[in-house]
């Protein structure tokens, strides 16, 4: 069964460093998402991406964040200058249609020191 895959599973970085989290959505899916979950808190929406552009973004998704789909398969989340409060589990998700089921990756745990 096709799955959303994410790399790395865990990344530790120093505050101020740039981080890129990678996702390979399911191949025939058209809608892509990033969510994050700070330890002990709820899953929060960051951004959605459709037709090669951001369709929605939350207040969390400020200028430090960017997303890209550089090659038609990968979907990346970049954090330009990480802060301590960026430490969280980041989930990528995709779905085939507007009303379809959302499929999640296993998450990338980011620890900012």
């Amino acid at each position, binding site marked *: 069964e096709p799955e*959303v895959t994410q790399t790395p599973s865990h990344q530790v970085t120093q505050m101020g460093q740039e981080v890129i989290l990678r996702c390979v959505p399911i191949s025939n899916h058209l809608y892509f998402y990033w969510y994050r979950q700070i330890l002990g808190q709820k*899953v929060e*929406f960051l951004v*959605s991406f459709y037709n090669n552009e951001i369709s929605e973004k939350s207040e969390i998704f400020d200028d430090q964040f960017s997303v890209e789909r550089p090659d038609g398969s990968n979907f990346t989340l970049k954090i330009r200058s990480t802060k301590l409060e960026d430490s969280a589990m980041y989930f990528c*998700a995709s779905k085939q249609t507007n009303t379809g*089921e959302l499929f*999640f990756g296993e998450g990338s745990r980011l620890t900012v020191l």
Partner: protein
Amino acid sequence: AQRVTQPEKLLSVFKGAPVELKCNYSYSGSPELFWYVQYSRQRLQLLLRHISRESIKGFTADLNKGETSFHLKKPFAQEEDSAMYYCALKKMTGNQFYFGTGTSLTVIP
């Protein structure tokens, strides 16, 4: 603004007992409601959605618009039901899902 509330962070029931995980929402439009489950060391996965009106793994959930609730129920809990359960709402417009804080269910053998 839309909001999903799961009042119980932790819930423990004995095997064979009924279980109900509560979910309340606030949204002025017609929402689409979902339950997602995360078993230990696995990814978040869809358990059920209100529009399909199915029973999955013995779980059901009914959307009650009067009470703005979408509680998840199972008449006889099994050990393998132990997991983290998230209620989620999708608005009529847009693609954003709003998640509750989750309920950790433990089924005691």
